[in-house]
């Protein structure tokens, strides 16, 4: 069989599908067959190109020509001109909006790819269990450079200049943190990597450790050199067995190469790393609780100051950084502070990894420059909302963050803008919600999580969150009053102001931001006893439309609690007192007689 010489890739993503990509695909295939080219040219549907705005897309390989907004009527021209005569169809090429020039080659469409992988540079590229592959991608070169060519203070200056801020949630400048720890005087100091990642729906840190563990090891050693520490600890949750395995292999290989241990790279610098396992408590991601947990104590936070940089693990100065923060470090050293600080927005430099989840087409791990808008993330990278539904909100910052809505779609994502919009960056979880999500239930879900995860040390968080949850529960059951909404707001403010640690201080955020953005939905739950998303079961009523009911008895036979009565061939009715709202009748009725009100 002859090998294909050319391929036409047609975007089959949902958005392009909506704009006739299927008919385009068929037309291309038919014409190619007509011309007898089907043994040389293959037409194939692909996943989303992330360029839905300009769909449908056709990409010609091997010359990488990228055609946009191609209609079925354009198929013949592409084939006759490009495929047969080798002349590109200029009219359909991507038009650079700035230079007004046609760009023919997808590699030169600078901004076509919205994602830039820095922290994830090696994920999905190298074999994480092979140190040589890491080295071949400039691995450990930054460490060598620091140890042999730079003083700790120079490295710290470089980190400060780069503008890197902590990716664990707080956004504290990393270089500054290193400087503070380096200035703390002590015989022993520690470098701690926070790999607790307790935010529901987040898996950025796990993916980095699974895909590129050496980048974290190298960065920890660099940090050790800067602050004067020779002990590193990775606090990782025991629920991440694969990440733990890969880290162990990586540490072992680094030791064998003499990149960890005594006299690293022929210098006098000693550094080694051990693992500490967490039991998967959200509060143990908070740095003081994390340190107590490592000391073998209860995982409870303590007051700051003193900050860990001054007094941490066994009262020694301890520099705690997040996994993703560390993963950025070697690149910054290799490529320089200017290079790094040119990426991102004014006060937030570099990129951020997000775990895209929820009602979005392309669930996955993405990395975008700071300052990318939500719209770009959701529609261009995420491929839009699943099943063509309407976007409602996106929760960033997990249980500590808030929701962003339609009006925030064009806000550039960075630390400060997110806070100004009533949410926060958090560690990078991004949960997308559509019209079927009830915002009161969303708030309740997060409160359920915080109530469960609160360590119980301080009253506002232990009792306050419980009360918040109770009120939300009342609302979703249709028993709420307008005073309850005010009570939620007041209580939230008190908890924020008085809780001891970040968990309690941020736990009311989902409540406040859903009230801010979706007050009408809260009010509906109270005054109309209605949940527009149809998620609050207690507020739903299954009823039978007499006109549609033919008396087939299918519903009555399938109702698990015998709530439906009626004669065969007669009209059936549902007894609301008995109904448990399981929806079995709706599913079984073939005559659209059962409806939800």
């Amino acid at each position, binding site marked *: 069989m002859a090998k294909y010489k050319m391929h036409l890739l047609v975007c089959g993503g949902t958005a392009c599908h909506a704009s006739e990509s299927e008919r385009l695909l068929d037309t291309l295939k038919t014409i190619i067959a007509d011309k007898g080219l089907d043994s040389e040219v293959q037409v194939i549907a692909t996943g989303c190109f992330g360029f839905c705005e300009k769909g449908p897309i056709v990409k010609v390989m091997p010359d990488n020509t990228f055609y946009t907004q191609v209609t079925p009527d354009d198929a013949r021209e592409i084939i006759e001109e490009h495929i047969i005569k080798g002349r590109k169809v200029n009219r359909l090429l991507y038009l650079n909006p700035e230079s007004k020039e046609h760009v023919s080659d997808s590699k030169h469409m600078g901004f076509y790819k919205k994602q830039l992988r820095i922290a994830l540079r090696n994920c999905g590229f190298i074999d994480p269990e092979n140190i040589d592959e890491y080295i071949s991608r400039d691995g450990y070169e930054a460490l060598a450079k620091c140890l042999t060519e730079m003083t700790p203070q120079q490295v710290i200056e470089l980190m400060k200049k780069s503008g890197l801020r902590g990716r664990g949630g707080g956004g504290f400048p990393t270089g500054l943190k290193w400087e503070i720890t380096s200035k703390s005087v002590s015989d022993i100091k520690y470098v701690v990597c926070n790999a607790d990642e307790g935010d529901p729906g987040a898996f950025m840190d796990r993916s980095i450790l699974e895909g590129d563990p050496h980048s974290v090891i190298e960065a920890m050693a660099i940090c050790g050199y800067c602050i004067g520490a020779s002990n590193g600890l990775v606090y990782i949750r025991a629920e991440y067995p*694969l990440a733990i395995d890969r880290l162990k292999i990586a540490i072992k290989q680094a030791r064998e190469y003499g990149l960890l241990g005594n006299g690293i*790279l022929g210098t006098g610098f000693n550094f080694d790393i051990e693992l500490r396992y967490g039991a998967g408590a959200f509060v143990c991601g908070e740095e003081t609780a994390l340190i107590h947990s490592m000391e073998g104590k209860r995982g409870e936070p303590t007051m700051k100051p003193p900050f860990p940089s001054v007094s941490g693990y066994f009262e020694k100065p301890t520099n705690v950084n997040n996994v993703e923060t560390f993963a950025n470090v070697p690149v910054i050293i290799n490529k320089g502070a200017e290079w790094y600080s040119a990426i991102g927005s004014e006060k937030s430099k570099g990129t951020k990894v997000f775990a895209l989840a929820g009602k979005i087409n392309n669930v*996955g791990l993405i990395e975008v420059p700071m300052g990318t808008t939500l719209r770009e993330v959701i529609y261009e990278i995420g491929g839009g909302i699943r099943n063509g539904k309407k976007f409602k909100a996106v929760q960033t910052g997990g249980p500590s963050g808030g929701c962003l809505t339609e009006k925030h779609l064009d806000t550039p994502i960075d630390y400060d803008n997110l806070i100004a919009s009533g949410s926060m960056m958090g560690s990078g979880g991004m949960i997308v919600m559509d019209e079927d999500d009830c915002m009161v239930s969303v708030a309740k879900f997060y409160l359920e999580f915080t109530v469960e995860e609160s360590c119980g040390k301080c009253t506002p968080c232990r009792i306050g969150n419980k009360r918040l949850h109770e009120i939300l529960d009342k609302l979703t059951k249709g028993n709420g009053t307008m005073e309850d909404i005010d009570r939620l707001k007041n209580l939230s403010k008190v908890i924020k102001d008085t809780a001891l640690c970040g968990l309690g201080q941020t736990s009311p955020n989902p409540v406040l931001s859903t009230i801010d953005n979706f007050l009408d939905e809260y009010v509906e739950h109270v005054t109309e006893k209605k949940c527009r998303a149809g998620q609050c079961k207690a507020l739903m009523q299954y009823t039978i439309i007499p006109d549609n009911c033919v008396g087939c008895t299918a519903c009555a036979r399938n109702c698990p609690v015998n709530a439906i009565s009626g004669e065969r061939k007669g009209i059936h009715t549902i007894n609301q007192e008995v109904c448990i709202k399981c929806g079995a009748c709706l599913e079984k009725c073939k005559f659209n007689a059962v409806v939800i009100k």
Partner: protein
Amino acid sequence: MTQVKSLADLRRIKENLQGKMSLRENSNNPESLVQIRVAMATCGIASGAKQVMEFFIEELDKRNIQAVVTQTGCMGYCFAEPTVEITLPGQAPVVYGYVDINKADSIIEKYIKNGELVDGIIPVNYETIQK
């Protein structure tokens, strides 16, 4: 294993590997092998990447095709796991999503043997700092 004692040692390892890696990065060498990378992070393994990787290793061997099968981390397309990246000699890498045993079989038979693309290609939607 030898110890790395200096930046020069490090560079040497890197150069030794450059051959192997560049083959993976921009294989222009017509005699070089087929490169297969299976995304084996938690998301991939949970959706069966391990079985797919074993299938590739065994079947390519049985069908007498010279290929290197390696594992790697998460490519980011978690919605389409297991994902597999195939690089034919002299060609740009192609990523396939939702690769089960059947799909793996048709990838071998159609794409690897005949250069015929198989449905389910995922366009690479990001740029990495190193080429």
